[in-house]
């Protein structure tokens, strides 16, 4: 198949950046989207041009490092699929594909399609953990947890931290990312103890990083590779409001 591409090129953070046209001919439809970018980069190397910088690592949908806007959607046209798991068979022959970085104030562009998502790390640093030191743990089966509870916690814990939820949100809100961690930990008996401080600190950090507020469009759930439910945002709001009401 043949494809036409418009790709965002930006040398460094301060650079204005622009869209640049490329095209690729005779590629296999079984190729993954990132292998298509590899192929384009091979051609750029032959022409002694700077290659397109994009984030990727595991290429099996779990590390969360890849992620670009493809035709205006984070990770492209398929729902609940990372960029690396997208294949060219999803596109039509001669289709124009527009590729841009994730856009958000809190995710500054570093180069081409690479953005700085370290704000997510700082949100976790603010409280996305259970305070247990190595060596303090009791016998594992001393904390029985019903299978449905463990499974619900897992649904939230499955977040890969890619940032698609932020990129798709018109307010660039990190509510889904933050609430997924809050929900994962508050559902478990081990995590309940610190629930109040956790939600307060993580929500504050989210605001300080420049993420916007949630406006309940629920686009994040659709874009999320792990299909993390927006109900976690409701749980975060409940935990946060409970804190305000109780004035603890």
């Amino acid at each position, binding site marked *: 198949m043949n494809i036409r591409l418009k790709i965002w090129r930006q040398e460094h953070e301060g650079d204005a950046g622009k869209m640049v046209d490329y095209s690729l001919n005779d590629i296999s439809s079984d190729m993954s989207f990132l292998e298509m970018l590899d192929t384009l980069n091979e051609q750029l190397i032959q022409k002694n041009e700077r290659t397109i910088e994009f984030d990727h690592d595991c290429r099996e949908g779990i590390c969360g490092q890849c992620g670009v806007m493809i035709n205006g959607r984070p990770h492209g046209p398929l729902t609940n699929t990372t960029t690396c798991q997208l294949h060219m068979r999803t596109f039509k022959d001669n289709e124009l594909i527009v590729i841009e970085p994730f856009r958000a104030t809190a995710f500054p562009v570093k180069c081409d399609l690479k953005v700085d998502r370290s704000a997510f790390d700082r949100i976790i640093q603010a409280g996305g953990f*259970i305070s247990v030191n190595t060596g303090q743990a009791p016998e594992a089966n001393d904390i029985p947890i019903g299978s449905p509870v463990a499974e619900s916690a897992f649904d939230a814990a499955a977040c890969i931290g890619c940032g698609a939820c932020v990129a798709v949100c018109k307010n660039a809100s990190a509510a889904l990312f933050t609430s997924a961690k809050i929900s994962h930990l508050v559902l478990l008996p081990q995590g309940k103890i610190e629930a109040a401080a956790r939600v307060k600190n993580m929500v504050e950090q989210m605001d300080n990083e420049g993420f916007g507020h949630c406006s309940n469009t629920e686009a994040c759930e659709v874009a999320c590779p792990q299909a993390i439910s927006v109900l976690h945002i409701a749980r975060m709001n409940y935990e946060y409001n409970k804190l305000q009401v109780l004035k603890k």
Partner: protein
Amino acid sequence: MLDARIPDGPLAEKWSNFKSHARLVNPANRKKLTVIVVGTGLAGSALAASMAEMGYHVKCFCFQDTPRRAHSVAAQGGVNACKNYKNDGDSVYRMFYDTIKGGDFRSREANVYRLAECSASLIDQAVAQGVPFAREYGGYLNNRSFGGVQVSRTFYARGQTGQQLLLGAYQALMRQVGLGNVELHARHEMMDLVLTDGVARGIIVRNMDTGKLERYGGHAVVLATGGFGKIYFLSTLAMGANGSAIWRAYKRGAYMANPSWTQIHPTCLPQSGEYQSKLTLMSESLRNDGRIWVPKKQDDQRSPNNIPEEERDYYLERKYPAFGNLSPRDIASRAAKERIDEGYGVGPLRNAVYLDFTRAIQNQGEAAIRKKYGNLFTMYQKITNVNAYKEPMKISPAAHFSMGGLWVDYELMTTIPGLFAIGEANFADHGANRLGANSLLQACVDGYFIAPYTLANYLAADIKTGPIDTEDVAFAKAQVGVEEFMSKLLAIKGNQSADQFHRLLGKILYDKCGLLRSKEGLMAAITEIRQLKAEFWKNLHVPGGEAMNSELEKAGRVADFLELAELMCNDALYRNESCGAHFRVEYQTPDGEALRNDKDFAFVSAWEYKGEDNGPELHKEELNFDVVTPTVRSYK
């Protein structure tokens, strides 16, 4: 002979003895000591967090944009621990024995026993951190079985066990970063190790966003940089996985042990085209319910669902009735290669075998299979466009795990004082073949429960040293060396990309230093690798400059892989026996199984770098079996 410094006493008491007598560092002195941890996978994150919790100052580095992306994240199936929750006869000794046997009697008894001994605590720690392991309806932890063992000791979190364990360690690490106890440097790649007076005292790293080189000093340096299976180019590893940190340490004097022992994983997606960048792993846990087969007729073109039962060869069940589809990885991979090479392979390139869930779906229902493996079936469909509930998966072997790595003693210290290697970066616990679900275990146990004790034992002598001066001439010289290396790569201006060289290298290794090895093949491989290396330094092309440049990063890693590949072939050539993943075609039993030679080869090969123009020097660590008796490994 190398001395592994194994503590005295009976096997079951060695670790307790060590802990009881190891030196300690007073809490007030710990903040004066800095530990450098390179790599933030399970081993690195666990260690960095644990050391910081105790009060040491930690500097932590990873090449990914956040520690949570380290490739431990991709481990699917599970983590072993001998909790005996299933009441099926598990114990520390049995787990130790399974692991020693699984490794084909080429690992250290004391290390393996300690691994089994610490396994139970790891599950406790992970649960306390909030890792959502699978539970039974009563609320207690569930287990499943894995290849090479007959008990159920594998704890799992759907098909994302590595992700959940890593997030546990990552969150512990983030907590310490937030508290100011860990200095985190993401997007920094280690370029060299700095020694002063023969002791590891720091590293030179490259800031991958700016291209600037930076110096960091510490009282000990720990490499937790994972395996180098990516040397085969097509592998189950992440694109950025590399061998550079341990290779630079090797060139500074750390010995490299058993570098040729690479696990080729039996259940990966087959290659479908020349453009392909990786071979995705499908968890071994699938072999609990999936049955592996090929058609009995060569080059059978029929769709799998049209091949009747009696025309299918369930070759693992046929050849290894006791373990069947749960035979260990080396055996399952070789059996697949044997069938494929004989012309029974399936798929467009005839390079795969079937993994069939028909019977499991009939017996347990689709919902039960979906609950256990749903994410794997979804992933399979995304990549191949095939619904594995309706049609068997096609799988084939792919390079996966490095049993080899930096040689370490019982305390996980390399031959360079102050330089430690933990997790997959060392060679220690898996012998010639790693059992499934033991890799997450080893990484965690090294990071949470072993290195914190052995590092303290080492650091206790360092409390009066004071801060490490990175203006020292040793740091300056190392930095100049790295600058020259990078400039050289940029200056070649040839006409081939780093990936092109990497693909060619991978093909040489798959053909000649992969599942099957021979003297002629390995000697030819060495010649080909040298030619490829010469061609690389003549014809490489790296566009762009010294600032952010993925091509420059790749080029540096491939340059190291080209050197490491030759050492792998030398290692495989020296070992005139077959054991585990190392199968020399000259040494096999009449029915095609590995033929070990305990009389001449019951040792660890540890290679010492002797300079660019000289070959490496071999040192041996004798393996003593005081408790188990090496037997012919049989899974029949």
